């Protein structure tokens, strides 16, 4: 079930994201509702349409576009007289000398393949612009503002809603499947753990065994170097194998103890782990007293942790 749920989740995320990307698109429609489009005074947030400006048709179209744009500008309020007249700085400069130039190869090729947009960002949609865009097979324009009433009349909005519903259902399926899978050991679940015991209790027991043995053995060693090496080796092994294994048992612990119980366990485990880490660092630095003390503190914390894990 989990695999199906994840597959559904992936598909719904794809579909939902694609549909969400259309939120600012406004369909130009078939012309029956142009007045509504114009009345909204839509400002374009991206270019729309494309044409080749170098063909005779393109040149004619460019003039039509300019005319449409001029009408849109004229529809806006006239520029009012300034409230206060300011003297502009004027400098008398001789005309610039002329220089004869020719297009480069790059410019020539770029001109040959040039594509110009019919409407540009910032243009306001008017009847003339709509007609030009529609005549060039433009079906959508991107508006600068989101209009839910428009978007929810388009099919991508329904895809989005369906995706949201699917995401919700698949998330619930994943949760249900995760509850069932909570009993699975980290290794069986394919976690990246080394050769470690299967259950959280067994892992914690193994840590206690190693730490306890180190506390005992350290007293039997003759030289400081031997004692420090013993701590470094044994705790290094705990850090490399048992600690990651315990962390990977998260689903099992949550399954049996809930999120709050898991938090309590990990809180206690982390305190212990930090002492192990501190003991290792002190040993590496040759500070034996601190190393042994931290080791003993870790050793003293482990029984309570194991007891808590066993009570569930």
């Amino acid at each position, binding site marked *: 079930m989990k695999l199906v749920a994840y597959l559904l989740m992936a598909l719904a995320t794809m579909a939902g994201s694609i549909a969400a990307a259309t*939120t600012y698109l406004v369909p130009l429609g078939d012309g029956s509702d142009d007045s509504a489009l114009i009345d909204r005074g839509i400002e374009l947030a991206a270019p729309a349409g494309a044409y080749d400006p170098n063909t005779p048709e393109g040149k004619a179209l460019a003039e039509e576009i300019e005319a449409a744009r001029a009408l849109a500008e004229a529809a806006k309020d006239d520029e009012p007289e300034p409230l206060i007249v300011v003297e502009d700085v004027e400098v008398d400069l001789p005309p610039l000398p002329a220089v004869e130039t020719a297009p480069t*190869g790059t410019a020539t090729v770029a001109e040959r393949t040039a594509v110009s947009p019919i409407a540009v960002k910032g243009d306001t949609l008017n009847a003339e612009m709509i007609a030009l865009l529609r005549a060039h097979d433009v079906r*959508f324009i991107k508006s600068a503002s989101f209009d839910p009433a428009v978007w929810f009349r388009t099919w991508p909005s329904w895809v989005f809603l369906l995706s949201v519903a699917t995401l919700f259902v698949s998330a619930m399926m994943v949760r249900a499947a995760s509850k069932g899978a909570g009993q699975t050991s980290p290794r069986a679940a394919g976690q990246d753990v080394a050769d470690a015991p299967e259950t959280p209790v067994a892992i914690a027991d193994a840590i206690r065994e190693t730490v306890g043995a180190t506390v005992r053995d350290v007293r039997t060693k003759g030289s400081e170097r031997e004692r420090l090496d013993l701590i470094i080796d044994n705790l290094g092994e705990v850090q490399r194998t048992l600690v990651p294994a315990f962390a990977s048992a998260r689903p099992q612990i949550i399954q049996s103890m809930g999120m709050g119980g898991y938090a309590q366990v990990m809180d206690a485990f982390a305190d212990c782990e930090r002492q192990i880490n501190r003991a290792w660092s002190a040993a590496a630095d040759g500070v034996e007293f601190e190393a042994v003390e931290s080791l003993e503190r870790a050793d003293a914390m482990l029984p309570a942790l194991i007891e808590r894990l066993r009570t569930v």
Partner: protein
Amino acid sequence: MPNGSSNGDHPGAPRKKYREVTIEALVFGVIVGAVMNAAITYAGLKIGFTIVGSAIAAVLGFGVLRGILRKGTILETNIAQTVASAVNTPNSGVIFTVPVLLLLGYSLSFGEVNFWLITLACVAGAILGGAFIVPLRKQMLDIERLRFPSATAVAAILKSPGAGPKKSIVLVIGILLSALIAAPAQLPQLKSPAPLDGLETLVEKEQISRADMLLTRQIATWIEEGDAPAELIEHGRLAFELVDAKAANRPAEKEGLSPEEAASRSRAVRELEIRLEDAAERATIAIASREPEASDRGRLKSAGYPLELAKRAYGASVGEVAGEAFAWEDLRSTKTGWAAKPMFGYSDLQVRLPAETEPDAEPVDYAYNGLGQDDPVLTERVDRDRDGVPDLVVKDDSIDVGRIFGIPGQIELIFAIAPFALGAGYLTGRAGLLVLAGGILAYVVINPVLFSMGWLPASVKSFEAPGFAYGAINRPLGIGLLLGGAMMGVIASLPAIKEAFKSIASAKVTSHEHIGQRDELGIRVLIVAVLAALVLLFVAADFTGSRAINTIDPLTEERIETDAYVSQHNGYAIAFATAESQAAFDAAPDDRKVLEVEELAADKPGLLAGLDPHLRALIIAVVGALWIWFAGIIIAQCTGMTDWSPISGMALLTVVLVMLLGGPGGVLGAVLVGAALCVAITCAADMMADLKTGYLVGSVPRKQQTVELIATGIGPLITMAVLLVIVAGNQAKFGIDIGPGTDTVAPQAQALQAIITGVQGGQMPYALYGFGALIGALLGLGAFSGLGVLVGLSMYLPMLYISTYGIGCVINMIVTKVKGARWAEEWGVPMAAGFIVGDALLALGVNTAVLIGG
């Protein structure tokens, strides 16, 4: 009880104090942090480069404390890197935001209230960010066990002396290998003046343009002849004159002058600006006219030249300007437009697509084989920039695998040559595949579908689709997913957060050394931080809410030099340059006033515009404090899971949030409060990463938290001081504070300025944020609450880094499968750590060299 167990029965163990927080570590950390802060502030303003610097501080600390002083322990070095990164980190929050004020015309100097208010806000923001994150340490590190790849790498460095010589060797090999791989990607940033006889080769390799070559040859002639076109020299003379005129036009210089005299100085500046623009055009024409071929004249005319060329030419012609000596040889510099030869990079391998010509296209003269010789036209598939040479697929910093395999342009499959991303991916392991999946979703599914469906503008070509969609769709949708995912993460983690709070409040003691002291700072710190945040943000919002929002008179476009003429409109304070201007505005009808203040965005009131100004400031303060906490969680989660921090996205949202509440016209307030919040957010993430390192080496969190909270306040002071020095230097040299036209173009602040302009123009994609948040929240509703954050982050990041990061994740899985998890952890982690550190060290070195070299 563990803290009572020690009784001195450890065989032969002297009761020796374990060095952790020491004077040496603190002093070293502050010095290294201050130097990095100053250098990175400059580098950030000049080239947009920032770095947290923990890894660098750890390596330096390792060398100095252990190597030179011969007494540093792992924990002491950890404290040193904690302090260094705490002092350094706030700079990214400051340089993202504060220079925007300078770009918008506000001034900053030691004598102004604005400067001290911003500095205070940033200092408080730095401390608050750290304090706010303290109670989340247990939840993120102890309970969620986030990986924090860079923090893990730093811990690997710190632990290397005890990990045995073999692991240290692996770490060093990792650093060297990383530097070796990254060197050809980063070294091309270092450029030197190209030799004259190698110019054509550089043109063929597309490392310089033909216009660069032509200008360089002309400059060489001027150096040889000891003369330059008169128009160019005149341009330089006017440039120096303008700097002097601007200096004389500063408010401090005009004190005591009559209004007429002051106005004449302003006019003189404007007149010189017009003359300067004209002189630049004349000089460009003069330079272009020296070329015999018409197409070369066209090239030079459209390319222009740097202002520095004109200034040095004038300087050389007169020998000395403002006490500085000039010589003609000074023109041989990459700053003057002399062609720059980059150091060896991957692009020197010249791995290009095979040539593919358009059979029907008429040949054109690209001038590669000399002028007058036509070449066949290549297809756009192999020559997107249409310059007649097949495009490179292996560039200095990336490999375009998609183009190598002929994948359609709308599908982006590109890999960054970035060992740090590889190392971070390895350290994240299997979980990082979700980031890769998110990247594939955005760049291989969403963008191509949008292109195929005709939902992108028709003028956008297939290979332009990924870039267009990234800015218009992926990024805002990704930010929305991040927000929703983080929100769901917080809800899902509520039981864990509750337990973490209970644990902190229960005064747990595990340290023998400090009987009766907590392991970490308690809830009281959070309470004090919340109160302090509210007070500070209230003071900042209240103060700026009453300040004028403009520096230019909306009627006369004159610069405002006094706050004597201020009118209220729409909840904003609008300043005027003169009493006449203010009177004209006050007498105008309301609809006319709206027109006049439209450019200041003061025609649009904020959501809280109708409220009493003090109540408005209080609400902004409360929302800001909540935002610090929430955004801090997002940044810490992202850094913890992947090593990437969406700081620019959070900075954007922070400023947008304040502008929505206070009104889009209130840029000063938005940037000031935004700066405090951005600094807080970056410091929160840094604190969490440092605590992760500390956790891995067994440091006491309380000690780290205390030194970090104290040290981090120093950071904004250094950054702001450096900013002022840069501004003073720019004023003396260029006559402007910062930005285009100076050496410090402040790229990140320019990006934020564009966003502010977008908010003012009402063009923010709020719907995409909202729908993204819904998807992000639902993704987090499943088994893994961080899923929405991971997918959102991958949509927010450029594909090239995600794909390299993904390779790191896959390598980890393969190594684990083939050699076993223990081997992967034991040998793979130091190697991956070396990759992260080596890349960071090289980047710092290269950028330092760029700065020194100018």
